[in-house]
């Protein structure tokens, strides 16, 4: 009981430490608040009129994709933060403290949920300005945001593990692009998955990022009436498929990351 309450309070201390950086570290502010605005505006105005969505507007279609992409990119931040803790040596301070062994990682992933929530808020407001809207119920809309955050949380455990493996912040920032770019572009984020060439199409249909995007579109009521229902199973059950992935990612990567944190033989 005491161990559990320590685990929670230790993680909360770490999360607090990360969250206060939003106002201190310009990089964080730009990453969390400014670049999402840029994304929405750029995509809305550059591609907004050049791609046709049958029966709907591309901006409506686009926003959920940008949301999904942004929270997936956000996971890189988790890994970069941990890589920085190692690089700057502060991880040795933590490892010599009687704190819960999961606290550094849980605290980090939780604070990144806060970052992601702020990013989503900013993007939603920007979206509203450029003509996007939610045409479902409040409850559905909340469920949409919650699903995005849940998937983002799970994915940040992947990057947490990677962050503990790489030698420096630069490496993870560059290497993660090789994962996050295909994941977020070979998907239904910016064009309907059905329009992609065959191999990419299969990948896109089973890509969890597509499911998150599809689920969000449905929950926000951003799918024009009369659109043909998707043919792939994941996109027919996007909420379930997303949650399955989220559970799977946490179940695999959280233990790996905690183990790595505990055993990585860093030096005083």
């Amino acid at each position: 009981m005491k161990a559990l309450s320590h685990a929670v309070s230790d993680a909360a201390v770490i999360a607090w430490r990360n969250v206060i950086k939003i106002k201190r570290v310009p990089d964080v502010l730009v990453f969390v608040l400014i670049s999402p605005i840029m994304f929405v505006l750029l995509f809305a105005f550059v591609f907004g009129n050049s791609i046709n969505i049958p029966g709907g507007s591309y901006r409506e279609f686009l926003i959920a994709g940008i949301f999904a992409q942004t929270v997936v990119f956000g996971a890189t931040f988790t890994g970069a933060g941990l890589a920085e803790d190692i690089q700057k040596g502060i991880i040795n301070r933590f490892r010599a403290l009687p704190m819960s062994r999961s606290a550094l990682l849980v605290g980090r992933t939780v604070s990144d949920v806060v970052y992601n929530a702020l990013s989503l808020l900013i993007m939603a407001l920007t979206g509203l300005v450029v003509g996007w809207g939610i045409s479902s119920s409040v409850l559905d809309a909340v469920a949409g945001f919650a699903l995005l955050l849940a998937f983002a949380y799970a994915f940040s455990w992947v990057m947490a593990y990677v962050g503990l493996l790489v030698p420096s912040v630069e490496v993870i920032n560059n290497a993660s692009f090789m994962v996050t770019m295909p994941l977020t572009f070979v998907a239904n984020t910016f064009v309907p998955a059905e329009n992609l060439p065959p191999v990419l199409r299969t990948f896109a249909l089973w890509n969890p990022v597509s499911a998150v995007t599809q689920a969000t579109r449905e929950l926000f009521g951003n799918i024009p009436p009369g659109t043909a229902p998707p043919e792939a199973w994941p996109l027919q059950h996007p909420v379930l498929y997303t949650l399955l992935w989220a559970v799977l990612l946490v179940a695999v990567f959280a233990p790996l990351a905690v183990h790595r944190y505990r055993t990585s033989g860093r030096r005083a």
Partner: protein
Amino acid sequence: MANLVEASGLVKRYREVTALDGLDLAVAEGSVLGLLGPNGAGKTTAVSILATLLEPDAGSARVAGIDVRSRPRDVRRRIGLSGQFAAVDEHLTGFENLVMVGRLYHLGRHRARARAGELLELFDLAEAGGRPVKTYSGGMRRRLDLAGALVAAPPVLFLDEPTTGLDPQGRRQLWEVIRGMVGGGTTVLLTTQYLEEADQLADRILVIDHGRAIAEGTADELKSRIGAERIEVTVTDGAALEPARAALARFAVGEQLADGRSRTLITPIAGGAPVLAAALHELAQAHIAVRDVGLRRPTLDDVFLTLTGHVSAPEENGQ
């Protein structure tokens, strides 16, 4: 008295490098052990193992009676660590750093804040306490890191080169703080490159090289083995080294060491400046041309020269 830190047969290898090669050590409760050794001797590795950051490949260690391998969490509750490189969060203020550490020791919000204030005061950081650490000088970071080790007032402290990077005043202040802690019953293991520091603080000194203990004793015991002071003479002509040695032999209280490459002769003496004057006179009588001469207190190098018979091998360690 019980030993609060005890290690036996510690071995740690990094690929082809053997950082620790069967190290034994013990620190009695309420005392200070100075771990002395040149670069790459294995000091940081030893501290890392005792502070539960690293697992040894062989050997065992107990801190406050607790095995570091099987119960690391319980060990961590009882230790404070200040590593060789300051482990502080750049983006937090000094105050926030210490509060965070206090909360992670589970002091509670109120106690953690009070303790952070006290320690900033103690380490002369009260004024800077509200500024992000990235605006601190190297010495200020170092002091903040040391403060972090004291947050929980732990019974055992590990300090890895605590005064490296501090100015003379900061060094003296830290010595005072450590003496105060020891006066209150804290047990300390500190590493240093400076014999003087070990001399000032340590009850016992353990000299290590290549991961092995090569000497142990009180500062006085070690000094009496190597002589209190030495005359260092550099001659102009290498051929004069032997005659110089002969000329100064009668002042020597220990083995004289001549280094042909640097044309330097080291003669341990007792008696200070008058002996130096007499020695210079002697050299002049023997018509030995002297380029440089000086009276020095023994350094770590002298300890090594005497204990190992060779100058401590320069290590290229990639830190």
